[in-house]
C-alpha cells in the first residue's frame, strides 16, 4: 500500500483498475483542482504534474492527479505549479463548451487518463 500517496480523480476507470493507493473521487476537473490545492495548503506535494500530457484540459473530461504527504509544511513549488495549471484550465474553459461525448469516446478518454496515471504509479512504485 502506497500510504504516502493519494489519487484525486474523476475517472471511474481508476477505481476499477488501480489498487493499493488511496483514491478520492471528485465530480469534475474544477473540484479536482480545488481539492488538490487544498491538500497542498495542508502540506501535501504534487507527485504528478496537474496538467495532462497533450490532450487539452476541459477537452478531456477526466483527470487524475497524484499527491504525496511529503515532509510537512507548505511546498511553494507544488503550489505554484498547481496555480499555473488552474489558470490554464480556466483559460481553456472559455473556448470549449462541455460536450456530450459518445460512450465509446468517454471510455477512450478514461483510458488515456489511466495510461498517464499508470506511467506515474509505475515510477513511484519503483521508488518505494
Amino acid at each position: 500500500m502506497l500510504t504516502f500517496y493519494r489519487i484525486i480523480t474523476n475517472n471511474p476507470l481508476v477505481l476499477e483498475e488501480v489498487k493499493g493507493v488511496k483514491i478520492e473521487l471528485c465530480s469534475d476537473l474544477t473540484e479536482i483542482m480545488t481539492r488538490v490545492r487544498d491538500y497542498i495548503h495542508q502540506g501535501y506535494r504534487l507527485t504528478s504534474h496537474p496538467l495532462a500530457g497533450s490532450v487539452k484540459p476541459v477537452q478531456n473530461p477526466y483527470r487524475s492527479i497524484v499527491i504525496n504527504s511529503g515532509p510537512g509544511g507548505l511546498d511553494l513549488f507544488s503550489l505554484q505549479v498547481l496555480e499555473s495549471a488552474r489558470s490554464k484550465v480556466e483559460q481553456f474553459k472559455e473556448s470549449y463548451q462541455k460536450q456530450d461525448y459518445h460512450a465509446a469516446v468517454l471510455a477512450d478518454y478514461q483510458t488515456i487518463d489511466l495510461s498517464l496515471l499508470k506511467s506515474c504509479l509505475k515510477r513511484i512504485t519503483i521508488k518505494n
Partner: protein
Amino acid sequence: MKLELGKIKIKDIIFANNTEIKDGVLAINRQELISLLAEPRIKELTIELAKPGDRIRIIPVKDVIEPRVKVEGPGGIFPGFIAGEEIVGSGKTHALKGMAVVTTGNIVGFQEGIIDMAGVGADYTPFSKLLNVVISCEVSAGLPQHEHEAVLRMVGLKAAAYLGEAGREIKPDQVVCYQHKPFYEAINDYPDLPRVGYIYMLQSQGLLHDTYVYGVDAKEILPTLISPTEVMDGAIISGNCVSACDKNATYFHQNNPVIEDLYRYHGREYNFIGTIVTNENVTLADKERSSSFTARLAEQLKLEAAIVSEEGFGNPDADLIMNCNKLEEKGIKTVLITDEYAGRDGASQSLADASKKANAVVTAGNANQLITLPPMEQTIGEQSLADVIAGGFAGSLKEDGSIEVEIQAITGSTNELGFTKMTARSY
C-alpha cells in the same frame, strides 16, 4: 561518426507491378506491400495515394515517415524496430525525398491529425507538399488501444523501410555529408567559436504520448548523448499523435531542422558540439531528475549555449522551464523553441509555466487559432471525428463537409522543431 545522406528526388508515385524507382518515379506494388504488412491483428488494410493539390483530406493521421535505406555502414534503418540494436549514423543512407508514408487509423474516438492536400488547410501542414502513400489500417475488434497503437506504428515503419529499399541501388540526386566528431576533437576544432549544443526533448508519458529511442520507451531513459546522424537513420521514432499540431511525427525526427541548421552554420558562427536527448515524464521527480542530468551533461560538454526544443504542451512546459533554469544557472545561455496556447484571441498566457531566465524564446505559432477548412472531394479515414478531436468542438463538422477547428488539429501545424513557416515576432 560520418554519414553521407543521399537524397533521391521522387517526382511522382504510382501503383504498378513492381516496386522500383525509374526516372524519379516510385512505382509501388500495392499487393506486395499489403502482404508484407498483413498480420493477424489487422482486419483490413488499404493503400491510397494523395498528392499535392488533390482535394483529399486525411484524418486521423497517426504518423508520417520518410522512406530511407541504409546502403553502407553498420546497422539498419529504424534500429530497435526494423533493424537490430546496432549503433547507426555512419556510412551511407539513401532517403526518398518529396514523399512520405502516412498512416491513419482510429485508435481512440477523439483522435486528431488532419492533412488537407489542397485548400487553406494545406498551407498549415508541411505534409500537404509531399507525395503521400496513405495506409489506412483497421484492426480486429476488441484489440486494446496500446496494442492498436503498436500495430499502426509498425505498419508505418515497415512500409517506409520497404519503400526505402527501392532506393538502395539508385544514384542520389544530391549527397550531403554530416560529421559528428568525438567531443574532445569537436571542442578543439574551433576554439574561438562559441560551443553550442542541442537539447532534444521527447514526449514520454503514456498511450499516444510516447517516443522511442533505439526501440526503448523514452520515459525509461536518463538523458543521454546521441549523434545527430543517428537521428537521421531513424534512431528516434514517434508513438505520439495527440495533439497533432506539436507532436513530432517520425518524419520530423528524420529531418530535424534544428540539427540541419546547427550543421549549416557549424564552423562559421558557432561550434556545434553535440545533442542531448531527454524525456518529458509525468512525475515532478522525473522532471527534476531529467533536467538535472541534462544540465550536468551540457556542463560536461562545456557548452556555452543550447537550443532547447519542446514537444507538446501542458506538463512538458514544466520540463522546458526546468531545463532552461538549470542550464542558465550553469551559465549556459538558452534559446527555447515552443508553441503557444494563448487562447483564440492570442491574449492569454502562452505556456503553463514561465521563468525570467526564459528570455530568448522562439514560437511556432498559436495552436488555438481558429480556421475553417473547406470541404474536400475525398476523405481518407473518418471525417466525423472532427467534432471530438482536440481543437474541434460540437458542430465543428458542417453539413457541406467544411470543418471549423483550431489549428492544433492539423498535423505539424505548430511543430516545435520549427519545421513550419509560422512564427510570431515582437518589435
